[in-house]
């Protein structure tokens, strides 16, 4: 070939010579979309800040939707710190291959839960063996997303009113998941009243707003401490001066009795008269009304 001959560019060549990598990616995305087509609302529960109760609130909201007669499942997207299996009492859930993919393990009340906590014992780290061991920072996040994509594509989610996705911490993670799930997924953010937490959540809101994904609002968890003896809710944190630019869906007080149910995996059995549960039931109704408006 002479130097003056113009060689073809990437876009001039159809396909990639045999592997069809782009075709595989597109086909997998289409498969996920088809597999989630029976779900009315997909809601990602995030924060940016760790330890504010994303998983607990996710499980409570699922229970609240369930009490409203809605069909609901949860996907624990926190691969490294999965908590939903324990919260749902499904750490030893059976994994059964069904006709249309993995059958979703369910709680006694019928809430479906897919969590890495059902796949890997709590005493073990979630591990992906690799030919590039020692350099997991290079590929680990990609592997986690593709594994989650597998669970979206190859699980028999069936017909649902709500699929709640419990996100890992990290403001940039909110952005990544907003891109990953696409604009049909709405976001709810969890914070506690502290300025430290609300500052991080403000950053997460800014990150999600760079994407087309809607934010339904935020929930203020641990808004106070409920004492069953005095029947009073006392403040746990000084009030914050950070303003969050999305609707407040409600405030949830901390009730140690409900917290005990969380550890035991019996959230759905916790007393509906607790101010924690009353508040979450109100929030679930508000979310439902917002989405259906």
């Amino acid at each position, binding site marked *: *070939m002479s130097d003056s*001959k113009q*060689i*073809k560019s*990437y876009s001039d*060549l*159809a*396909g*990639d*010579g*045999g*592997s*069809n*990598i782009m075709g*595989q*990616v597109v*086909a*997998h995305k289409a*498969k996920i979309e088809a597999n989630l087509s029976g779900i009315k609302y997909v809601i990602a529960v995030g924060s940016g800040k760790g330890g504010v109760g994303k998983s607990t609130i996710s499980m409570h909201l699922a229970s609240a939707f369930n009490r409203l007669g809605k069909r609901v499942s949860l996907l624990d997207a926190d691969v490294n710190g999965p908590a939903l299996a324990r919260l749902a009492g499904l750490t030893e859930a*059976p*994994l*059964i*291959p*069904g*006709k249309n*993919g*993995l*059958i*979703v*393990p*369910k709680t006694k009340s019928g809430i479906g839960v897919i969590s890495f906590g059902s*796949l890997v014992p709590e005493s073990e780290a979630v*591990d*992906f*063996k*690799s*030919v*590039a061991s020692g*350099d997991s920072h*290079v*590929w*680990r996040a*990609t*592997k986690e997303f*593709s*594994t989650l*994509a*597998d*669970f979206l*594509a*190859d*699980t028999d989610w069936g017909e649902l009113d709500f699929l709640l996705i419990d996100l890992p911490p990290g403001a940039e993670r909110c952005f990544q998941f907003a891109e990953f799930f696409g604009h049909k997924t709405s976001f709810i953010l969890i914070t506690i009243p502290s300025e430290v937490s609300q500052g991080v959540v403000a950053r997460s809101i800014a990150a999600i707003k760079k994407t087309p994904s809607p934010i339904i609002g935020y929930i203020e968890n641990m808004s106070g401490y409920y004492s069953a003896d005095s029947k009073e809710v006392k403040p746990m944190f000084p009030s914050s001066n950070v303003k969050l630019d999305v609707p407040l869906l409600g405030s949830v007080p901390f009730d140690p009795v409900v917290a005990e149910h969380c550890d035991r995996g019996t959230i759905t059995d916790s007393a509906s008269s607790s101010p924690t549960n009353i508040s979450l039931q109100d929030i679930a109704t508000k979310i439902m009304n917002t989405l259906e408006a």
Partner: protein
Amino acid sequence: MKFLCTSCNTQMKLVKNEAPLKPDDHGSLSIRYECPDCLMEIAMLTNAFETQMVTSMGVEIGGKTVSKSQGITLDESGNMTEANGEPAAKCPFSQMARDSMMGASETDSANTNESEFPWTAQAMVRLQNIPEFARPMAKKGIEKFAHEKGFAQVTEECLDRAKEEFDM
């Protein structure tokens, strides 16, 4: 990634052969491409990061292997026969590539048809169609269930029975 034969200005094609595609001790893969016009061959040599990145994306060099979306068919005795015209049980190139690139936790026998406890082809298809990460544990659990319930092999009936017994 695409490869162009600059002599012919023609796209080079992946060479599929019977030899297993395996990373070497350093995690490097050697993947052959050929110019369909002048038949010149080159090899793409990946480093461990590149090998792992491709694997992490969940895609397969050499093309996707069998899945329900590819229309697995079974013969009268329940054996897998064809998927888009290729032998369904194992595409000799891509399945080997996938297996060889996956980590130890994922190269469990759940990813092949090999098992100490026998599975019918139909039951194995179901196993292959659940998320890869869940397969080893699902396989172990189902085999334990099958053994306890006196099944001689894991069948679709056995899977359906497990579904019923666990009230799922």
